[in-house]
């Protein structure tokens, strides 16, 4: 087991409204393409800013999960 956990980012394109919040909160991880958000990379080293992005999305369109366990980390509840 490595020391740094790996996370997976998913943006549901059917929910995304292109508010641009995630791309502002975590600019290295989300980018708007044709008005909708998309992860820059689907697998990333753990980074708190993507949790902020997922928790700030008004449509809860962003899901952050652990690559190994598939456990959802954000959004909560």
């Amino acid at each position, binding site marked *: 087991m490595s020391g740094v956990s790996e996370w997976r980012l998913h943006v549901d394109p059917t929910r995304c409204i292109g508010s641009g919040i995630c791309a502002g909160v975590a600019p290295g991880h989300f980018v708007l393409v044709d008005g909708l958000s998309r992860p820059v990379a689907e697998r990333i080293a753990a980074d708190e*800013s993507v949790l*902020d992005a997922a928790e*700030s999305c008004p*449509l*809860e369109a962003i899901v952050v999960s652990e690559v190994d366990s598939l456990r959802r980390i954000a959004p909560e509840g």
Partner: protein
Amino acid sequence: MTDTSQATIPQRYPFNAPVRLDLDARYAELREQPLVRVQLPYGEPAWLATRYADVKTVLGDPRFSRAASVGRDEPRNTPRQQETGILSMDPPEHTRLRRLVAKAFTARRVEELRPRTRAVADELVDGLLAAGPPADLVAHLATPLPIRVICDLLGVPVSDQDKFHTWSEAIVSTTSLEPGLAQHYLDNLLAYMGALVARRRVEPADDLLSAMVRARDENADRLTEQEMVILAAGLLAAGHETTVTQIPNMVYVLLTTPGAWGTLRDRPELVPAAVEELMRFIPLGATAAFPRYATEDVELGGVLVRAGEPVVVNIAAANRDDTVFADADRLDLTREVNPHLGFGHGVHHCVGAQLARMELRVVLETLLDRAPGLRLAVPVEELTWKSGLLVRGLLAMPVAWGAGPGEGA
């Protein structure tokens, strides 16, 4: 590309006093040109962005900062620089505050408020119909509905609405309130909210204020008491002033655009699309506010914006950009693709957008259902409009319903 920031004389802004909900024809010309320099009533000159792509960049690109306005002679509409709390922050400080409240405004949580909102709308329309015709849509429906909804959500006693509704004007005032009075109202609003927060700490309830108090007490290092009180006061004030204004604006456009009200009456399933189109079409803002400062040199709209220079945007102009919206100056209630910027864009995108959408849909659906023959009770030119505010809106909106003169049988 031209580099003219120091060379040109800034134009006075806003260019003209707002007329009803008309968009100044000047913006159509400006979208064809490089950014221009403008001078707001107070503060340093700024660049003005009007094209869709440029406005989106200024609002969404981290190279444009709100926090950098602190300590600058910010372009503004009032003599004094106003404390704007979360609106003067960038990530990660902004995110720290926003996350505290964002959960309460997700589409999922807002959906849970719909039945109650529908019941309130029905009750208020009962009152409207009992009072006339004619009766004032602003007083009977547009003002009380958003206040009741935000009070329920936050946990603010609706019985205090006369007080805080008066004070809230300070949040959206430019010249309507004399500066001393505006500050007095702001102080009152903050003191009121501070007292309410203190009460919730002793007697928690199932509301957002209690949740904010809990989060603050669990993470005292992350949030000061003052930050929480300003945030809560901002939610209360912004949470109703805008929707209170936009409900009559939407009804006004629907009643004064030939065929629009009838289209929705025949096809109420179009209401969600109509709300988006009305958000796009209505120039809610009366002036520019919340300038963004470039943190590095940025090429934007044919000019070089230098690090440290402020940019203001006109969202209504961006929403009429015909490179994005076909036939942009026409109200099209069936428009399918509508990426309007009516709720802003980027990290400061309206936190209450989903709540506002739900309220606006419920109000229109209720009116279409209960008052299908709705019409203005006075000629358009007799309507009176607010002035001296950040937003445009009607002071009163006398409406009638049922078969009337000019409607035939």
